[in-house]
């Protein structure tokens, strides 16, 4: 019974195994990125970046069809251009990064739509919008694994300045020039993960596997290491749970994964030990000292 429910779908079907490997690889990189986005109060930046990637991927699709390299490169170029442009403008003018990013991603989105309609072709962008986690080929799996590995290694390398840039950017500026480099490296990681994510979950939902586990983890711990660990676990369990849910109930798999992550978030809101609702409304008795 349990075997039928949990193991059989993966044992039986190769596409389910591929989906599992792909979404787990994605969870490994995207969840920690989400943690830092959240801690830097940039939770919505991921969403903006996802929109910025869409036209790039669409152009790639127009030029080369459903080609992994073309769409990946298109998305990367569009995403990085918006991230770099917004960051540069924020540092050189009075506009703050949020306003600049909003301006850039809207321009990017509009430009993408114009290009698509100028070609006049009836492009089916469902794949780009909602992904196809059940149709991951070897190439895409390699991309997802590469993104996950690259993200973890890069995060390990830039961890110290990244934390410093989050906690006390002025101090980092006063002791080193690393601030801007660290920021752009981090934004590049965001873009990489979103581009990897859209192959599995689509541009609109790729942000979900980033932000939902991070937000849920924040309700369980006050410790950075804990946050990263818990968010990866929640993202991984959501991937497994979502795939099983979509298999048994014939739901679209990408949204199912994000919905399970949403469920984990809702549970954390109520039961979270570090700031959940129960702790808030039923405070424990105070201590002596």
């Amino acid at each position, binding site marked *: 019974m349990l075997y039928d429910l949990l193991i059989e779908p993966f044992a039986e079907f190769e596409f389910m195994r591929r989906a599992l490997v792909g979404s787990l690889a994605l969870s490994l990189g995207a969840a920690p990125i989400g943690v830092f986005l959240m801690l830097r109060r940039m939770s919505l930046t991921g969403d903006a970046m996802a929109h910025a990637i869409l036209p790039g991927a669409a152009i790639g699709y127009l030029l080369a069809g459903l080609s992994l390299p073309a769409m990946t490169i298109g998305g990367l170029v569009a995403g990085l251009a918006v991230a770099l442009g917004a960051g540069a403008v924020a540092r050189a003018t009075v506009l703050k990064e949020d306003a600049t990013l909003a301006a850039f991603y809207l321009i990017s989105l509009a430009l993408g739509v114009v290009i698509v309609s100028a070609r006049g072709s009836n492009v089916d962008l469902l794949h780009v919008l909602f992904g196809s986690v059940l149709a991951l080929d070897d190439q895409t799996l390699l991309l997802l694994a590469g993104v996950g590995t690259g993200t973890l290694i890069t995060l390990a390398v830039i961890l110290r300045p990244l934390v410093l840039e*989050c*906690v*006390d950017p002025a*101090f980092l500026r*006063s002791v080193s020039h690393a601030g801007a480099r660290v920021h752009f490296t981090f934004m590049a990681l965001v873009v990489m993960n979103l581009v990897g994510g859209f192959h599995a979950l689509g541009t609109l939902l790729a942000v979900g596997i980033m932000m939902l586990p991070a937000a849920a983890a924040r309700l369980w711990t*006050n410790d*950075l290491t804990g*946050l990263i660990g818990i968010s990866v676990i929640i993202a991984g369990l959501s991937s497994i749970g979502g795939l099983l849910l979509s298999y048994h109930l014939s739901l679209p798999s990408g949204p199912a994964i994000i919905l399970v992550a949403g469920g984990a978030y809702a549970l954390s809101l109520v039961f979270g030990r570090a700031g959940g609702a129960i702790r808030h409304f039923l405070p424990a008795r105070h201590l002596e000292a």
Partner: protein
Amino acid sequence: MAARIEFQDLTLGYDRHPAVHHLTGAIESGALIAVVGPNGAGKSTLLKGIVGMLQPLGGRMRLDGIAPHDIAYLPQLAEVDRSFPLCVYDFVSMGLWRKVGAFGRIGRGERGRIEDAIRAVGLEGFERRAIGTLSGGQMQRCLFARLLLQDSSLILLDEPFNAVDAKTAADLLDLIRRWHDEKRTVAAVLHDMETVRRSFPETVLIAREVVAWGPTAEVLTPTNLLAARRMIEAFDDAAHICARDAAA
């Protein structure tokens, strides 16, 4: 350990308006100098200019014996995001940045120094506390511990005793005296004239321009303080280009 700062006709400001106007003088190595003056007099601007966060609008400034990145600088409103899940120990350890950088190991020697710094500011027992749970005074002690670890020969403090109780201020002042005894150069922006008179041998009184600079007792006279108070705070949008540059 010798850090000297020399200003030559230095003008610092924002959007072409001078906040520090034609400053000439030097902060000698080992000096313990108070920077005083009314609000808007350019005190914080001067410190920002020294650390290189502001480029001069005119004139020059020279740092001897120290690079800008080696200066230990405590800004007025530290932009610390205290909601970030980080404990006191890890926060203080950032003071070692110039030594360990992004990748250097924090070994036994460094850990000893971090513990010493935390003890020196009276925060022992707080090591594992999240910085978000500290009171204002405790956070200031935490920032001082980080300054201690920076082990800099030039320490710039912008209103270090703001919103801090008397006990904390006295403790932090002891640290400043210790730095002075160790021949470090210390400049602090202060508003409490009593503290300045008691603990700072040298004072520069500025009101955009230098009103008086020298031994504290000679600078903080009623005449000088009144002159400083007469400074006009607002920038004049219709101001002409400063004539003194043209004359020079």
